[in-house]
């Protein structure tokens, strides 16, 4: 091996970390902080919505697959509700935070990203597209989301989760 390549090798390994840390660190915002951010005053007590009968059918239609959760926790006060939801991108669960205010998306973020590729969806340039969007009677968004090449599955996951949050908000608002 020519000397120049040996130098390349040595330089390369200089950049490597001493040890791999124990926990995944791709947490962009702690879910607790996201919930806090959604309510200007005190955070209301968490409630559960059970995913059963018609609600389950609709949720599974939105996600395009079976939903393994029996219930979903949320925080709600007046017209505002906040949801911490997870969906698989390619192989791993992505944790999203979605806040709905009067049936419109007030905030939508990627909180924890665990996939090896496709991390571009955390960019505000992407997530800001969801702001003020709503769903129609078929639970489809009223805006067309610009995708990201190479992050198709992550983009799809976030779009579904935003639709699901908007739908669940409609269910709880009807009940109250």
């Amino acid at each position: 091996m020519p000397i120049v390549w040996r130098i390349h090798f040595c330089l390369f390994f200089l950049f490597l970390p001493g040890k791999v840390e124990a926990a995944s660190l791709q947490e962009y915002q702690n879910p607790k902080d996201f919930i806090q951010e959604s309510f200007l005053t005190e955070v209301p007590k968490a409630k559960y919505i059970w995913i059963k009968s018609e609600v389950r059918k609709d949720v599974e239609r939105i996600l395009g697959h079976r939903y393994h959760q029996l219930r979903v926790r949320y925080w709600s006060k007046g017209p505002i509700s906040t949801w911490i939801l997870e969906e698989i991108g390619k192989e791993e669960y992505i944790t999203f935070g979605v806040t709905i205010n009067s049936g419109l998306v007030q905030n939508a973020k990627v909180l924890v990203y665990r996939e090896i590729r496709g991390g571009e969806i955390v960019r505000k340039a992407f997530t800001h597209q969801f702001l003020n969007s709503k769903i129609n009677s078929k639970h489809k968004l009223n805006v067309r989301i610009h995708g990201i090449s190479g992050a198709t599955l992550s983009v799809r996951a976030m779009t579904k989760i935003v639709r699901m949050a908007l739908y669940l908000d409609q269910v709880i608002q009807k009940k109250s």
Partner: protein
Amino acid sequence: MFSKKKILKLGLGLGLLLGGQSWAASSALDKKVEQLQREIDALKGQIKENTEMLNETASAMEKGGGSYSKSLWDKLSIGGYGELHYNNLDGEGGASDKKEMDFHRFVLFFGYKYSDTIRFVSEFELEHAIAGESKNGEVELEQAYIDFNYSGAHHVKTGVFLMPVGIINETHEPPTFFGVERNPVEKNIIPATWWEGGVALNGDFPNSFSYDFALSSGLNTTSGKNYKIRDGRQKISNAEANDLAVTGRIKWNGVRGLELALTYQNQGDVTQGNDSTAGGADLIETHLIWMYRGFTLKALYASWDLDGTGPQAVGADEQKGFYIEPSYHINEQFGIFARFNQYDNQAGDNTGSEKELLSIGFNYWPHEDVVLKFDIENQDNEGGQNQDGFNIGVGYQF
């Protein structure tokens, strides 16, 4: 006849009797109410207990119940994609016809998660349906690496991995691109699909850019193949590694719907020291992807510069190409596209080796992971050896 006194006594007696009965009835009612209250309290307690038990059960189920099979499947991941192609092309100017049906690619992904930060990723491919001696196909290991997520969105991986270059080299599942066949520019110039063994760093800075840096095995081209880059892929099969390659890429997605990328690679010696008339080489690739509502524009340029008199003698010292592809998604299920490609693996001389290909067609997605494709292609090669006609394809991913 009854005396007044008797009547009074009788009335008093009757009153006492009736009064006593009413008091007795009221007392029984009270007892009943008390009993009902006790039952309601008991039911309330039962409901509370049941709700608690239900929540506990739901929590336990949502956590996976700790069963072995669940935890194993949590760690293992399986995916795949495939595509069947039908080509119906007529040859002209001496070019042969191409009328064939081919299960071009059948791919399986297997992954294993050792921990939250250490993962195994692999891609196993069967090309052209059957492999073996005198068969058309190949069985290929295109990816097999260990990824370490060492900090935030920063990774280091080692093993066999796809080179960080171009648009389709790393993402080539059929539902993600237009056209039955992949574009010829990335195929013949980059050359996609291109994988090497080595070690690579990649990472992402939120709201700015992502980067890749790789130190890997290199190409091994030959004068017999006119130093064509695509024929230099060693596919990590007893690959000669006298001279390695360094690759760097920077990608920017700072504006909604826009991706700009630039890759540079340096090869120590593209013949691995086997040809003294050849030497090092540099690749520059850049592309743009712009998505606006249903409209997408993709444009890519790639260029190789090979050192040495050997490549220069056949014009292979310069190998370059570009394509531009506008497309429009009419709705979620249907999209149309046009793609103009131009490339030349011997652009360093005037031998007329430039090739052009225009494709126009559509994709129909009956499901977001299943695609049916159709396109018409028109070639314009120097010398007039063209194959024109149409292609039909079906592809899937899971």
